[in-house]
């Protein structure tokens, strides 16, 4: 048996199928994974993401600490509540984890890291926090719900006070703040609008029931995965890990090479990649033109180049065909083939995202 979130019993009562995810017993689906996917694209769904690890970092030198620790630059965060997506790299430029960091106050930042990487992340962060006198506190008492979909914000706001609801509905994209004792952020992992809400574990079950009563569908990690892949968002462990750097993982946009005097961990390794003519491989989106389903680790045959590999693949419920991320040689063109059980099927290289705000962006 793995670790359980405060909502575990409720998931069981709702008939969820439970699977192991990064050492946690998590709901993969309640009734139909495709049904849950469409609920988020068309209306609203709620996910239990309490397994994710919330870490508060406090100290007078927390900003310089994060400017060293992260590949993106927290100096982009000028307004309290603003969030930033970043990789945390090792000395070789490999990705230890990807995370969201919130600027809450001059001496208080909050990071949210993946469940499966919690232990090594905490070790790494603590190791480097020492010389900056930054305290590292895991907020295990918080539950986290992601309410996502075109109707998500208006429905979730009904659970807040009148003033709280107005405040929540005024939040800009990628901004969070404390509202009625909860931390409400306009973030997500689905390609739809919505909130991620950190709240006391004791509130979580009641809130889930109230959201269900408002027509917000219970959604599992299965739908979360198809939604994030359609939205063109990487999954740690699939699409990047410690052996791959951001430039070959579709994450160059998250690395702040300017200003040049910011010496973040991994920078020399990335400079060397650039000096050597850039990354030898790239992460691309694939759209399968033949019938079948792309899956991670399938071989990608690239004309005149070395073979590549699918890193994440699935059936896209919105496009009703198969999509994937694949790591291929940088010189790969727009047409490739994928080896599925010994058959070579045609796939087209496309620029993610595949779907945003309910709309197909590729066809």
């Amino acid at each position, binding site marked *: 048996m793995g670790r359980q979130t405060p909502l575990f019993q409720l998931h069981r009562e709702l008939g969820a199928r439970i699977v192991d995810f990064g050492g946690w017993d998590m709901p993969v689906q309640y009734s139909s*994974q*495709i049904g849950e996917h469409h609920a988020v694209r068309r209306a609203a769904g709620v996910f239990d993401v309490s397994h994710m690890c919330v870490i508060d970092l406090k100290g007078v030198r927390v900003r310089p600490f994060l400017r060293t620790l992260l590949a993106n630059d927290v100096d982009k965060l000028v307004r309290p509540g603003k969030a930033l997506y970043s990789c945390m790299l090792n000395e070789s430029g490999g990705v230890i984890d990807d995370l969201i960091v919130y600027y809450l106050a001059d001496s208080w930042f909050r990071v949210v890291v993946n469940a499966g990487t919690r232990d090594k992340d905490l070790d790494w962060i603590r190791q480097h926090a020492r010389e900056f006198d930054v305290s590292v506190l895991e907020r295990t008492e918080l539950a986290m719900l992601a309410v996502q979909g075109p109707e998500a914000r208006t429905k979730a706001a009904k659970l807040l006070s009148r003033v709280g609801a107005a405040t929540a509905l005024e939040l800009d994209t990628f901004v969070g703040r404390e509202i009625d004792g909860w931390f409400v952020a306009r973030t997500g992992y689905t390609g739809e609008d919505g909130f991620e809400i950190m709240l006391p574990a004791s509130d979580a079950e009641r809130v889930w029931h109230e959201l269900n009563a408002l027509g917000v569908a219970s959604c599992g990690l299965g739908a979360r995965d*198809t939604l994030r892949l359609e939205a063109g968002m990487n999954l740690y462990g699939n699409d990047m890990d410690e052996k791959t750097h951001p430039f070959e993982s579709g994450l160059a946009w998250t690395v702040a090479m300017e200003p040049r005097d910011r010496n973040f961990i991994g920078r020399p390794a990335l400079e060397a990649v650039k000096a050597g003519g850039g990354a030898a491989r790239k992460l691309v989106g694939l759209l399968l033109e033949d*019938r*079948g389903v792309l*899956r991670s680790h399938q071989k990608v045959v690239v004309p005149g180049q070395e073979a590549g590999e699918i890193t994440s693949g*699935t*059936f896209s419920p919105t496009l009703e065909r198969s999509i994937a991320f694949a790591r291929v040689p940088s010189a790969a063109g727009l047409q490739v083939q994928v080896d599925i*059980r010994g058959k070579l099927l045609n796939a087209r290289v496309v620029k993610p995202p595949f779907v945003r705000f309910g709309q197909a962006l590729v066809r």
Partner: protein
Amino acid sequence: MSKVPADLKYTKTHEWLRTLADGTIEVGITDHAQHALGDLVFVEVPETGRAVKAGEPCAVVESVKAASDVYSPVTGEVIAGNSALAGAPETINTDSYGGGWLMRVRPVAGGPATELLTPAQYEKLQQEEGD
């Protein structure tokens, strides 16, 4: 509890078999199997005329989550694959014992077959696997 019709035979790998009037055998996956796989999105059935051996993978069913092989329970010749499933794989979720059939095989007389289970034995297997 998943449905286990009394007039069919089953395999340990979650296929069902129906013996038709002409002696041919219709094969599909069980309700338990479709439930475990979740929403089916792709099905590959064998071509007519293909010779199959008992225990050999001869069809593939894929859900959003995973691909799964379907094994031929008998040795013989495929006389039909259910081509209607190409455009409607979800039929296996809604009607696994009817419209969701995968293939029909004419078994070689006296040929080998995988170990077949009665409905009662299959129900017991499901329970052991935690249905």
